[in-house]
């Protein structure tokens, strides 16, 4: 099937809204004190409350509320002083109470928005509809013997559901939105945004309409897209399916569909008529959730500067290219690493740019090679700054700098001491350089002859010979300069 850029389609426009479920990073569940450890033995992290025993009652986890408020503040939502939990009723074996405790017509946060930006995505503002809190269900696994097993370890885990307006126009924008949102969740430490562990899940509402038409087309809802890549694939598929149906004169039915990652198709799950009647009503076991202005201000005080604001600031303060600023701010820990280094450098743009190059290049490469989290970078930023200083001061060559970088990555130490101790100091003494050059020229009379006869390409040969003789420690600029002078006999 086609994956052409829908934004370039002259006839059709895609409209996408996303619902993200993010696991709120608390130590215990939303309505009971059970711990949350991914991968624990089935049903080992349960209690009478989260396993739905008779007579048990939910009690709200205050930390989870504070984190949801923090997310709301981070995306500029209105935080409501009173929100209501509601029961969402449906039967399923991994839903022990027979209802989920969610928020329905009075959610904690409404409004706000986030910026998206990316390689194929122009900078755009995506509006948010709402953020509400709810508890997760357990996990069912269906055996081949006709029986299913239920694990309630996840049951009661705190989630926030983050609903966007239908403001995205392409799968690329949707993916960019998810990346931005995930970055905000991680910056604010509201969620670790880990898709593999199910702490960041996404459903999409998709419709297609003739370009220029205001009225939205009929939407379908797509579920089960558990990686960024699948979101892109699934949205591309579904948009094209809509267009194919519409162009064939057909009608889109308002269905809920599942993304089949193996067959790469969306498959029918249920129609609008089969949709559950969840019979929402206010949860009588919980009082309305009241949030005082003081509490909101306390949470606001804990809010870090977010990726987008940081990226804008780096571009202004350090004259960094947008690309560099984007890479450096993608993770809060990396941005903090960079900023510590930039502060050591006094913020001078030229020096900061070489810091940026080192971080985007060698630092991230080694992190990737060694599957290291940014928080676990063994090389402290001030050492990297010292290394850059040695290059700028002509103490070491760029080539030696790579060796020094590797040495410092393996073991901390004073860069200057290492360079001295290992004899890596660059030779910038013109007398010493001239002496080596003279020897090399004397040893290769015919090459000298050819060079002087016009074969100037041979200069590289001489540079190589001299550097080899100097074990790479000759100051390359000076070696070049002196070679030119001596070869051309101008000295």
């Amino acid at each position, binding site marked *: 099937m086609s994956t052409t850029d829908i934004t370039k389609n002259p006839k059709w426009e895609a409209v996408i809204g996303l619902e993200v479920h993010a696991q709120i990073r608390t130590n215990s569940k939303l309505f009971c004190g059970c711990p949350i450890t991914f991968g624990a033995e089935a049903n080992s992290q349960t209690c*009478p409350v989260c*396993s*739905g*025993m*008779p*007579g*048990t*009652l*939910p*009690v*709200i986890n205050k930390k989870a509320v504070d984190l949801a408020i923090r997310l709301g503040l981070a995306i500029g939502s209105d935080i409501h002083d009173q929100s209501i939990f509601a*029961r969402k*009723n449906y*039967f399923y*074996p991994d839903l*022990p*109470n*027979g*209802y989920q405790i969610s928020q329905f017509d009075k959610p904690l946060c409404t409004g706000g928005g986030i910026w998206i930006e990316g390689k194929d995505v122009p900078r755009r503002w995506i509006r948010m509809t709402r953020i509400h809190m709810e508890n997760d269900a357990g996990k069912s696994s269906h055996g081949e013997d006709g029986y*299913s097993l*239920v694990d309630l370890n996840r049951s009661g885990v705190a989630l926030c559901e983050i609903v966007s307006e239908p403001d995205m126009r392409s799968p690329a924008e949707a993916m960019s939105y998810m990346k931005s949102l995930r970055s905000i969740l991680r910056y604010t430490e509201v969620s670790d945004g880990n898709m593999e562990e199910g702490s960041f899940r996404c459903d999409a509402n998709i419709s297609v309409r003739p370009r220029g038409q205001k009225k939205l087309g009929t939407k379908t809802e797509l579920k089960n897209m558990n990686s960024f890549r699948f979101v892109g694939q699934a949205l591309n598929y579904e948009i094209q399916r809509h267009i194919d149906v519409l162009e064939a004169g057909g009608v889109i039915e308002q269905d809920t569909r599942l993304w089949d990652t193996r067959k790469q198709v969306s498959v029918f799950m249920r129609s609008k008529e089969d949709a559950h*009647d969840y*019979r*929402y*009503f206010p949860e*009588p*076991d*919980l*009082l309305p959730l009241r949030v005082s202005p003081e509490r909101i201000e306390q949470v606001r005080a804990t809010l870090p500067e977010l990726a987008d604001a940081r990226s804008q600031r780096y571009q202004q303060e350090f004259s960094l290219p947008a690309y560099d600023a984007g890479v450096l701010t993608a993770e809060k820990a990396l941005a903090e690493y960079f900023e510590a280094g930039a502060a050591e450098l006094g913020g001078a743009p030229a020096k900061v740019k070489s810091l940026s190059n080192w971080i985007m290049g060698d630092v991230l490469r080694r992190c990737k090679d060694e599957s290291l989290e940014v928080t676990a970078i063994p090389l402290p930023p001030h050492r990297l700054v010292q290394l850059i200083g040695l290059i700028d001061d002509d103490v070491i060559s760029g080539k030696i700098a790579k060796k020094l970088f590797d040495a410092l990555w393996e073991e901390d130490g004073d860069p200057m001491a290492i360079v001295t101790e290992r004899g890596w100091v660059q030779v910038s003494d013109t007398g010493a350089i001239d002496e080596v050059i003279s020897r090399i020229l004397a040893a290769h009379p015919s090459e000298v002859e050819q060079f002087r006869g016009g074969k100037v390409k041979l200069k590289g040969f001489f540079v190589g010979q001299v550097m080899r003789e100097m074990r790479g420690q000759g100051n390359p600029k000076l070696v070049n300069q002196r070679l030119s002078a001596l070869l051309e006999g101008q000295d």
Partner: protein
Amino acid sequence: MSNHLSELRADLDNGKTTSTSLVEGALQSAQEQSQLNAFISMNADQALAAAKTADEERAQGQVRGPLHGIPVAIKDNICTQGLRTTCASRFLENFVPGYDATVVSRLRQSGAIIFGKTNCDEFAMGSSNENSAFGPVLNPHDLNCVPGGSSGGSAAVVAAKIVPLSLGSDTGGSVRQPAALCGVVGVKPTYGRVSRNGLVAFGSSLDQVGPFASDVVGAATLLEAIAGPDPMDSTCADRPTLAWSEVTVDDSQPVRVGLPREYTEGLSEAARSALLEPLEAMDGVELVEVSLPHTDFAIATYYVLASAEASANLARYDGIRYGVRVQEPGAGLDEVYVASRSQGFGPEVKRRIMLGTFALSAGYYDAYYAKACQARDAIRKDFEDAFAQVDVLASLTAPSTAFELGSKTNDPISMYLSDIFTVPASLAGLPAMSLPGRLDARGLPWGLQVLAPHWEESAMFRFAARLEAQVARQRGEQQ
């Protein structure tokens, strides 16, 4: 033999009896009156062991409080660790909780002895105790009559003098109405006064655990032991527990007592005089007619809201984790749900689940659930207006004395109407209690209800104690 807490306490204090002999006596009495069918589970061994401990503590001068060594019966919808808690339902016939309800653990801490689990209407749904999967409870005053419901067993065991105290639960009158029909004192505290943690939910916004005793002071003492904030129940308020049991009869204090017109209209002459005779004879009481204009909506409002909440509260009984599981070979998930719930629940429970599910359904929510919420607000407002004029309200607890078994079972509406005087206070979350009034021509007690503003249990008990004394004087004359 006396069944008043104060007298049993005095006997324990001065060594006339021991907890062990109290428990032994209660076990024997329960055995002798087993035809009442008031207990679903006995806790004999544990109760005797607890009595022994209580006696040993007392011998060492260690008395935990007024309930030390006193046997208390617990309605079987209140969870007791290690002791079967059935809610009088087939569904939970073999359910043994791994935890105590907060009220039960508070009783244990106060030295009280968990004596046994009392029969009730299934999941507390009923007004006659005829909806129990374990059979009806009989009224100790007349074995042909119902004890009231849903806490019929808890009322009957106090009326039959098996134990001095018991706990019930009141959603729309389930403590007060059986207290009335059995001639004992029963209290529904202000909503939020007592923790619901461990009380198996029926109508969560209405349910409250409440005490039964043979007199006002006994009930007040038991309430003191179980009331107060609980971190396990967000709806349990941070309100101090007061010394309600220190209530004394003080006829020198003037009190304005409201008589809701809507509760007295259409009463038979016998019913009317059962209410008015004691009130009119009391010193220092000014009777004021008040109006609660939305009373007519109360029963419908209650059955919509309580059933709606019940339809969700009972969804957890799905046959997956505990309770009845009916699974024919090859049955799928839906078949397991349907078969387990069809066989596990009795007809009244099914009726209310259906009613509540309907009231919450898309397209009907506004007409039923939302409308009922509005009516509830109006009813609450009625009481606020009334309490602006008076200190307490008084009424009959139920429109009749105990009725015969089977007389209303085929007419749910008539059965629901027996809650007419108790339901409004439940909807408003007010404290209310029933105490025995005069006896009717058959010798069955009338129940007198006292209602007070939110958190005003003190005013309620103060007036109830005076009314109790007045009734005692008149009963003396009556006999």
